[in-house]
């Protein structure tokens, strides 16, 4: 069959410009992924893989489940790349996927409570080992921090999922109220309330580690982040 191709070399292609994947923004990488460029996934995994795994570890309370779900999150990112709306931050989208998967898992587990109970100890031990392993390579290797990490996990387990999610996304992952609101599909005001309740419950559960005389100071009476309207407070 005669091929209908012209045999004209392309000058642009013979001297292609260099493009560094790592230098691309999340939105640009997602655009490439939409168009089938598999390699755009790697930088996204580098940037968010650890964060997603951390979040899922806290929320699912099970290291092995967290590993499986982290993998599933990025499979979804790959498969659903076409649905990503670049107007929203990628981290919001990816945590939203992670949270939905975690909620599904916990819902399934609650219907298999007997099984979960039998797995509970294994799960806790898995995550405990994971924490110890992570703590060993953490910049904060102090005994208090390692000990706190274990007690923190135990305390966190006693909170409802939504409190765990809001607290971890705010305090561990550093998301803004508005971003957390997008992840959990609630208003920033609701996020604020849940975060406050989560903090109060954890404060109660971790009272030993939150000795007010250790450290702490009042912030300046003028906020560096600027004023927040009264409406947000109400």
């Amino acid at each position, binding site marked *: 069959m005669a091929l209908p191709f012209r045999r004209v070399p392309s000058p642009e292609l013979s001297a292609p*410009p260099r493009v560094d994947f790592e230098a691309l923004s999340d939105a640009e990488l997602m655009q490439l992924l939409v168009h089938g460029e598999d390699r755009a996934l790697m930088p996204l995994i580098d940037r968010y893989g650890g964060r997603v795994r951390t979040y899922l570890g806290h929320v699912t309370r099970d290291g092995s489940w967290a590993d499986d779900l982290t993998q599933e999150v*990025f499979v979804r990112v790959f498969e659903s790349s076409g649905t990503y709306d670049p107007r929203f931050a990628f981290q919001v989208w990816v945590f939203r996927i992670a949270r939905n998967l975690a909620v599904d898992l916990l819902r399934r587990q609650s219907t298999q409570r007997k099984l979960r109970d039998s797995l509970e100890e294994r799960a806790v031990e898995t995550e405990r080992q994971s924490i110890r392993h992570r703590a060993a390579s953490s910049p904060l290797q102090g005994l208090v*921090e390692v000990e706190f990490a274990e007690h923190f996990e135990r305390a966190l387990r006693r909170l409802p999922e939504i409190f765990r999610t809001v607290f971890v996304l705010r305090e561990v992952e550093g998301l803004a109220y508005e971003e957390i609101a997008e992840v959990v599909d609630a208003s920033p005001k609701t996020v604020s309330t849940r975060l*406050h309740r989560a903090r109060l419950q954890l404060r109660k559960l971790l009272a030993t580690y939150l000795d007010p005389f250790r450290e702490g100071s009042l912030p300046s009476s003028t906020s560096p982040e600027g004023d927040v309207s009264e409406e947000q407070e109400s």
Partner: protein
Amino acid sequence: MNAPAPSNPCSAVRALASRYLDGRLSASSRARVHAHLKECGDCLETYRSLQRLSTLARALPRAEVPADLARRVRRTVSERRQQTLAHLHLDEAPLAPARERAVLRLPWRGIAAAAVLVASCSAALLAGYRLGRMDERGETEELIVGLRIERDRFADQLINESSALRPTPGELAQTPERSREPRVREIDQGILQPYRERGFQPEHFVRSARSLWSDLSSFDQLDPQVRRPLLSAQLSCFDLPSQVAIYDQLASTGAPQNDELAEVIAFVRRLSHELESSGGELVPSRLLGSADPFAALPVSFVEAVPPSPVRLAEERIAESLRACGETDPSVLDRVHRAMLVKHAYVGGAVASEEQSALVIKIVRTVKTEVRHVVENGKEVREESITSSTQQVTGGSEH
């Protein structure tokens, strides 16, 4: 709306402690909480414990990216694609879905969308191909993902090209008016029995013709250059002209005719005449019935539209493949045919947003297929070289 005045200043301040900690209070509230904390030891203790909780939580050890995550993600995606493929039965009968759906349910907007999609996917396909080759050369550092820039520019170009396909008002005035749906009141089984014995299938014929009428209504207003290949593929897929030929042949011998089919037959004749007078040809039925998508494609479908974005995309791929050093005609031929499969599906499937997702899946599969082809082509060439070497050396190495 203002919050109700707190009866107890301590409980009010504690309720605001979280937002105070996060800098989420207005200036006045912040000043009020600040002043209270300076005076109230209990509230200060509460605040500091929250502050310490925050500090410790932020210092918690972070999980690392799970080992081998990227590879496992890719493998899972690949396995699921294969499952999707199996579900769609693409590997058994790749053209079947398009045929069943009358292939070309395409408004001109669909064509534009398909063209852009093809362009994007072509670039992606090419990028994958080239990246693979660059890996072979150990030049991964110099990834040729400058194709991203090229793709964007090319997509713009294709959008313009697609826009150019819109009919002008003058052309619109010349396009045939939308016909009335052909009516069929009753299929007379007794009269049609001898026709049936000769291969005429009245139910299939009527159903297909009415389906064709429905499809045509969505591209009656197309540029004739686009309408012609669509008509060609559409008539060919349903095999309607040959059905009319069978009917005419028997009717000419004086066999009684089922008058109720008259409108449908006239409708098909009119379309056949339109295709013939515009220089279009039917796609040979042998090309439509084969199970091998690469060996049995209606090549004329794409080639019949000389300035089409699809054609441009193909040319661009060919150029780029050669720029990569690929000169093996069989590889180019396979890529070309893979592109045609893609076009057939794009043409057949992109009628809505939902269906475009399906097309993307298929295109990704085609991309994998092309990679496979290219890799096999390389293996074949290497085998050939080894074989030649053995012949020269007398095969003493083994």
